[in-house]
């Protein structure tokens, strides 16, 4: 039997119309017909439509992503599998990845965000790793508008609902607001797990003559065409996104069941231990469901598959072949197991209340042959069709930076400005939000949300103290200024945050979010962000082992589609030998001294492109200059922080980032369990007041030390060639003073900082 038998009356023109409706270009349609040597069937067209969508194929970003440095010490798995892997000791590796769920979350925030968490956790346990932590990185439009306050609440509720139930702690995150996200919010979720080296699973290790099983939930009609039509369509060239009403789009958003996923996770981890020799390959059902799992395992393992769709457990009646193939029903896995072992797997999966059915077998044909009630619906040569034909990319470019000779007046009302900066969404306390996430389940959380970086204890028994840390950063304003600079500053801040808590950076995952890839500046953003990351990766020795690209993030602004600022979340992972030494980020003790560690270098004597300048300078006073950054000195600074941490030199350590020195000091006073005052003297400084207080000169963390350890700190500075500046002292009273520049009550600082998110 051949597929042409199923074509019956469909004409070439009808099929082509279907193909274009599924998102294929003219060129892709021709390519498909040529490779097949015949007309594709309607079912095949729908499969290819999803596989070749931007979301699944990365066709518009691959040429850039390929250049990312992904090899390095300890890397066991780079990009291409479900998650990256870096070896952390002689027995174990860490698996981690960040992923986006922007488009579904804008349409249906609760389920969109919830299934985002579900998807990234599946990526981790598919590798054989038990997930031990998640983080979430969110961007909204104006949070004072009802729409975005609704979206924030929906996204947070969705993350809390899924994460709390499944029992993986949510230990870190970041939220900010910018009008560029008014029509397109960002929801990026990170997950990290630990895996034993002898229990790592991949999708590239299946052999012919083995059984193909589907595990987990039953298949329904949810999420069909989510990948091709929600996540891969731009506003003008594909009218689908704008023509469909929001309600019509909602049915393309999947619905998550965290309990089902928890059972699937526990079942998978159980068979990965007890039946590990019988399980040869595994792949989760992500975008495009059964289609992508089938093609990915077949392609990566260089095999074929013969599947019978009527064996798929379903929860809806009369589902058609294309629906079974495209459904994005959550909490499902494809597993390839040795012949004869199927019943053993079923027993464990059934114990956990999961479905487990054999739906076919692997073959040596390198073709995906899919039957429905014995009728051949799909017969595709896998490797020839995994990737779409190369697309012609726009020439990358980025606007020239403009400079101005305007010199804005220095700051006058320092105290009010400090309060305003503290209440700005990206700076303000997110306590009311992260208290809705279970951050301590798992009994591993040393530092949870609110710390400079999250720290998790991964010792195997009560007497071993190894830890793992992570920090995610994306400063969209710097990315918008220049994507290369944005990537470097984000990399530097992530690494500094890790070094502040005492963790040595080992690798990154990147969550890239950009606009319409057909535009030159979006290609430029990709190119420059990769360049920026690579320069930092080389110096910091932090290879990129996994990542995600989300495109077509656009906002309608004055009836025109407007791309979001390029926004790449760098989530950096670090290691520490002894979590008992980890350094907190808020002040600990009255009477201790506060010093700034600073890498030397020329800096503008103006707080250029600081948060302060963006909020308080006139449009014509702002320009394309950026704060000082030097990656090589950053590395020295990281080493100094790590050495100081190892010598128990610091009582607390905190980076100076958005809002500058004043904001960082204020947060250190009121960000801990106990509030402290601060008494500082900067009367000797020659710089402008706004630069001193609010400038964002990079490479300048604050450390709190016992006065008795001053000489040890001097030694550290000399050793690593880091300048030291005494800033002031921690006090037990309620005054916050940076003499002679500003002074006020700490209670006002606390109110300003904690009043934004309620």
């Amino acid at each position, binding site marked *: 039997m051949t597929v042409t038998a199923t074509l019956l009356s469909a004409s070439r023109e009808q099929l082509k119309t279907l193909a274009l409706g599924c998102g294929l270009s003219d060129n892709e349609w021709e390519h498909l017909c040529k490779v097949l040597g015949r007309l594709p069937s309607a079912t095949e067209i729908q499969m290819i439509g999803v596989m070749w969508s931007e979301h699944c194929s990365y066709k518009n970003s691959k040429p850039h992503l390929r250049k990312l440095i992904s090899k390095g010490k300890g890397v066991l798995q780079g990009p291409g599998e479900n998650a990256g892997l870096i070896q952390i000791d002689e027995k174990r590796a860490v698996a981690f990845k960040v992923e986006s769920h922007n488009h579904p979350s804008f349409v249906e925030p609760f389920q969109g965000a919830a299934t985002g968490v579900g998807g990234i956790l599946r990526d981790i346990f598919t590798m054989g790793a038990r997930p031990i932590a998640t983080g979430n990185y969110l961007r909204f439009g104006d949070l004072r508008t009802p729409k975005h306050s609704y979206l924030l609440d929906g996204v947070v509720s969705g993350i809390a609902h899924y994460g*709390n139930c499944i029992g993986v702690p949510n230990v870190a995150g970041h939220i900010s607001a910018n009008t560029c996200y008014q029509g397109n919010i960002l929801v990026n979720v990170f997950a990290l797990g630990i895996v034993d080296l002898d229990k790592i699973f991949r999708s590239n290790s299946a052999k012919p003559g083995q059984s193909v099983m589907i595990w987990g939930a039953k298949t329904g009609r949810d999420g069909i065409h989510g990948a091709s039509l929600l996540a891969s369509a731009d506003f003008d060239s594909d009218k689908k996104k704008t023509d469909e009403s929001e309600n019509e789009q909602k049915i393309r958003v999947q619905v998550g069941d965290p309990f089902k996923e928890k059972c699937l996770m526990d079942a998978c981890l159980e068979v990965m231990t007890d039946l590990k020799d019988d399980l040869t390959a595994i792949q989760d059902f992500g975008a495009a469901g059964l289609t992508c799992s089938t093609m990915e395992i077949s392609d990566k393992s260089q095999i074929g598959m013969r599947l019978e769709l009527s064996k798929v457990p379903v929860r809806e009646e009369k589902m058609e072949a294309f629906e079974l193939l495209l459904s994005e029903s959550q909490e499902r896995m494809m597993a390839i197991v040795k012949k004869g072992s199927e019943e053993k797997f079923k027993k464990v999966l059934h114990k956990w209340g999961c479905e487990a059915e054999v739906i076919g077998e692997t073959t040596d044909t390198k073709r995906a042959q899919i039957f429905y009630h014995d009728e051949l619906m799909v017969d595709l040569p896998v490797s020839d069709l995994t990737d779409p034909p190369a697309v012609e990319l726009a020439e990358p470019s980025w606007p020239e930076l403009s400079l101005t000779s305007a010199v804005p007046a220095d700051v006058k009302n320092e105290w009010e400005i400090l309060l305003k900066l503290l209440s700005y969404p990206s700076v303000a306390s997110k306590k009311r939000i992260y208290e809705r996430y279970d951050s301590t389940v798992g009994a591993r959380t040393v530092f949870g949300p609110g710390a400079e970086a999250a720290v998790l204890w991964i010792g195997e028994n009560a007497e071993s*103290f190894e830890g793992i840390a992570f920090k995610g950063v994306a400063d969209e304003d710097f990315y918008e200024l220049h994507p290369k600079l944005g990537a470097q500053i984000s990399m530097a801040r992530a690494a500094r945050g890790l070094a502040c808590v005492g963790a040595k950076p080992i690798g990154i995952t990147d969550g890239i979010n950009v606009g319409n890839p057909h535009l030159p500046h979006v290609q430029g953003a990709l190119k420059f962000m990769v360049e920026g990351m690579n320069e930092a990766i080389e110096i910091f020795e932090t290879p990129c082992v996994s990542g995600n690209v989300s495109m077509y993030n656009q906002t309608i602004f004055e009836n025109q589609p407007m791309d979001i600022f390029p926004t790449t979340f760098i989530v950096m992972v670090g290691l520490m030998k002894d979590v008992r030494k980890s350094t907190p980020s808020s002040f600990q003790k009255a009477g201790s001294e506060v010093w700034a560690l600073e890498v030397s270098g020329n800096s503008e004597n103006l707080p250029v492109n600081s948060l302060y300048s963006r909020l308080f300078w006139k449009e014509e006073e702002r320009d394309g200059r950026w704060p000082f950054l030097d990656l090589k000195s950053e590395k020295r600074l990281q080493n100094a922080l790590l050495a100081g941490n190892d010598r128990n030199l610091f009582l607390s350590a905190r980076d100076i980032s958005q809002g500058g020195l004043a904001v960082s000091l204020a947060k250190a006073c009121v960000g801990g369990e106990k509030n402290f005052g601060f008494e500082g003297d900067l009367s000797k400084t020659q710089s402008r007041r706004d630069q001193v207080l609010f400038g964002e000169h990079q490479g300048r963390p604050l450390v709190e030390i016992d006065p008795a350890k001053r000489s040890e700190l001097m030694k550290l500075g000399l050793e690593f060639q880091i300048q030291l500046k005494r800033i002031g002292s921690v006090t037990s009273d309620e005054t916050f003073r940076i003499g002679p520049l500003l002074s006020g009550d700490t209670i006002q600082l606390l109110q300003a900082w904690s009043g934004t998110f309620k």
Partner: protein
Amino acid sequence: MTSGMTSRTSTRRWAVVQFPGSNCDLDTFKTFQAIAESTGNIEVIMHWHEEPIQKNQYEVIALPGGFSFGDYLRAGAIAKLSAAVQNLEDVVEAGAHLIGICNGFQILLEQKLLPGYLQVNSHLRFISKTENVEIAAEAFPWFSKEDVGAVVRYPIAHRFGNYQLQKIDLAEFHPVLKYQQNPNGSYESTAGIYRKLGKGSLFGLMPHPERAAFEALKLADGLKMFQRAEENLRADRSGSHENAVNA
């Protein structure tokens, strides 16, 4: 002392009952193991919910936190039908000490083994933070007389933690843990309630001492509670053993 008696006294079994959807099962297991490693003769068992529990099978039984069966109906409402929790009253009367933490507490309330009920938190949101909790009364084996009055720090993480009572028979039930700053609207800041029953006991609480049981976490107040239970039970066993020999 005969060898038979030695083996009887040396087999102390502490169990964690695992339901589908339990998510503090491994944490509680890890904590029990830490106790077992420091004392030797305790065997720690993960007990699947479909298996009934026999009298005298375990010295300590934990119903862990989590979302048993997804808690889509009412927290603990499905788990109370599991075989493992059907005859808990008899098992406790015969001498087992049962601790229900968070979702485990919810299951004990559904079973009506402890009084009262849990509502959604007064601010209607899930809340996750570390709370100061006062030990308000003695509760064998968990808290001894000298522990009373101490303030300990335990994490909380729940949405249905607002513990309400119509009236309480203080002769039978003892509020042994009280929040210093009531985070969820619980009746008289009650964080945990204790009941002596036959030779055993029941202890239900919302905070998570098992998440505060390791030096690595810089939070080990919970470890003290489990250590206290181990010491008290060991002393009790050797005491009753001596009594048996003397008799």
